[in-house]
């Protein structure tokens, strides 16, 4: 990693490949220059900044900010219509449905029991997944930071699943975990009984967590590894001079100096964990029953997959999820500010 430049410097062959990508744009870009020159004469050089910002901000407004507002409108209106003009105002009724519970600890006492099962599953998933993910990423980063041979290769080994699509990840593991799969073959050859991993609720949850760690661990390992390599080497050299035991070096030097990166990793993993959907959806479909149904899955189902599409309820659930994410993002900002100060 030490040899990697912060941002890769220009290299002719890469620039060559990229300009190949730009080739189809050469002519349109030259044609745009005519009206752009006219515009520049009209509004002046400095205001051209707004012209350059326009497309990107247009996309942001249309597909992020406007939807954010519409989401609130959806969540306070009812009916089956998609367009706000067809939807009668119902006030906080959608939220009332969502929070209509006999007891918040028992999802089956709730009117929208799937939402609360989703909340409970997502909470359980996130706690297990983030804890295990942070521990394993830390372990892996520390090992990769040791004086080992073929470090580049091993780093690649842990990293490559990050690039795989969630569908590929889920199908790969589904094939291994199925009734007559590789894992059951190993178990029976050792004299054990076959286990229906994705049919048993607790096993299904375990594997959902496992597969998601398998797929994303490399990403967090990379961030922690970058943090580890930023720790000045002379600190370790001094510790070696004093013959400090390795575990003590870890507790007294490595962990405290890595802590800012750890916080970033924990919060990022939390934000991602709360939004878990893709792999779980393909691997278990939320099942068996509702054992691995997540909040985002509930939103998707309520809005798009159910027989009766209920956009209002889905929007209300989205707003609740959005509030949680917003809180987590504030946490991240606070953490990165501390990192900047440190």
């Amino acid at each position, binding site marked *: *990693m030490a040899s990697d*430049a*912060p*941002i890769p*410097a*220009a290299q002719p062959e*890469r620039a060559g490949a990229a300009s190949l*990508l730009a080739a189809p*744009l050469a002519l349109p*870009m030259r044609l745009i*220059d005519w009206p*752009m020159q006219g515009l520049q004469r009209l509004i002046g*050089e*400095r205001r051209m900044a707004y012209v350059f910002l326009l*497309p*990107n901000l247009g*996309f*942001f407004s249309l*597909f992020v*900010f*406007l*939807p954010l507002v*519409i989401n609130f409108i*959806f969540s306070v209106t009812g009916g089956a219509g*998609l367009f706000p003009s067809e939807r009668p105002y119902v006030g906080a009724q959608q939220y009332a449905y969502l929070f209509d519970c006999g007891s918040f600890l028992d999802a089956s006492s709730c009117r929208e029991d799937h939402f609360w099962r989703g909340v409970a599953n997502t909470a359980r998933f996130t706690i297990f997944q983030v804890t295990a993910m942070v521990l394993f990423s830390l372990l*892996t980063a520390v090992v990769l930071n*040791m*004086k080992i*041979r073929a470090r580049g290769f*091993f780093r*690649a*080994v842990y*990293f490559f699943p*990050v*690039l*795989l*699509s*969630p*569908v590929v990840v889920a199908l790969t593991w*589904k*094939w*291994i975990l199925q009734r007559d799969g*590789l894992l*059951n*073959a190993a178990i029976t050859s050792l004299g054990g009984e076959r286990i229906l991993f994705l049919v048993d609720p607790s096993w299904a949850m375990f594997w959902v967590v496992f597969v998601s760690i*398998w797929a994303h661990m490399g990403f967090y390992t*990379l*961030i922690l*590894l970058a943090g580890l390599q930023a720790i000045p080497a002379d600190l370790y050299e001094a510790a070696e001079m004093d013959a400090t035991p390795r575990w003590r070096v870890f507790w007294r030097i490595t962990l405290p100096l890595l802590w800012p990166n750890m916080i970033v990793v924990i919060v*990022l993993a939390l934000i991602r964990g709360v939004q878990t959907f*893709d792999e779980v959806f393909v691997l278990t479909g939320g099942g068996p029953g509702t054992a691995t149904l997540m909040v*985002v899955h509930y*939103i*998707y189902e309520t*809005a*798009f997959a159910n027989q009766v599409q209920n956009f209002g309820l889905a929007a209300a659930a*989205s707003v609740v*999820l*959005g509030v949680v994410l917003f809180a987590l*993002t504030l946490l991240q900002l606070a953490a990165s500010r501390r990192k900047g100060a440190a």
Partner: protein
Amino acid sequence: MNRLARMATARRSPGRWHWTDVAAYAYLALGVVLMFGPVLWLGLSSFKTQAGLLEFPPSLLPMSQKEVRVEGHAQPLPLFEVTLEDGSKRVLAQVRRIGIQAQMVDPANPGQSIRVPIDRRTAVREFKLATENYTEPLERFAFMRFLWNSVFVTAVATLITLVINSMAAYALSIYEFRGKTAVMLMVIGTLMIPITIILVPVYLVITKLGLVNSLWAVILPGAATPTGVFLLRQYMLTLPRDLIEAARMDKASEWQIYWRIVMPLAMPALAVLAIFSIMWRWNEFLWPLAVLTKTESYTLQIGLNAFQGELQTQWHYLLAMTVVTLLPVALVFVFLQRFITTGIANTGMK
């Protein structure tokens, strides 16, 4: 041999082996098995025949029963090794099976038929790649269509992302203008709003634009990325300002400066964003799943997910298609690994 042993046991720093070194290598070895194993198994399995996939316990390599053409039989016959009553072993071809008896012939002497109890024969197997797993889905399903849709979405979306993100980054790095801080805050704000919480209203916007079930419905909503704007802006800030001033002196228009001077110089950062965008688009799942409901507009990921619902028993096609879906990303990874990892380490995004 001696040198090999020395090489295997050598460490970068001279000194005695600490137990943590041993543990580290053990952990790395376990990691290789756990991370590579599943994908390797997927690859091996994708070359097995349908019958081969049903075997339990499964064989490691794709094996299938050897067959021979025998005179007088239209179809090739499966080969078995048979233990005869006198204890001798012969390789015979099976004509048909009747209850617990099998009627067999010697391929060298097809005239004479031999009856053998089925528990006295074992199949003769050979290593064979079932390439039909890959070729048949191309003809039988809309697989080529999915592949094309994915390629189209990935290419067009990446192009749009590169152009509009670089324009915004150019404005935010080269100019001083009123409202710059507000715009920066807006861009940061979009980082906090993932598609998971605006799924329904984005669907409404797409419906209003009349784009449901068109590939543009997948391309447009994610085209402007805050990550891309930041990445490019950060890089453009490092470009020498004199260059731009000199170009203005030479009466170059702002658009020309952007396209002819700044863009070529920003190529390294653009390449990083291009790789990211290709990965994002190729692997995107939740949004296409929500907005694409007609089979002919499915992308590969959505098609594959639909298949795994329909083709529960047809794992041989499913595994092969999974491998095809994985291949482009694997190639990108092999050639551009350093690029991707530095990009992630710098931005903390993926």
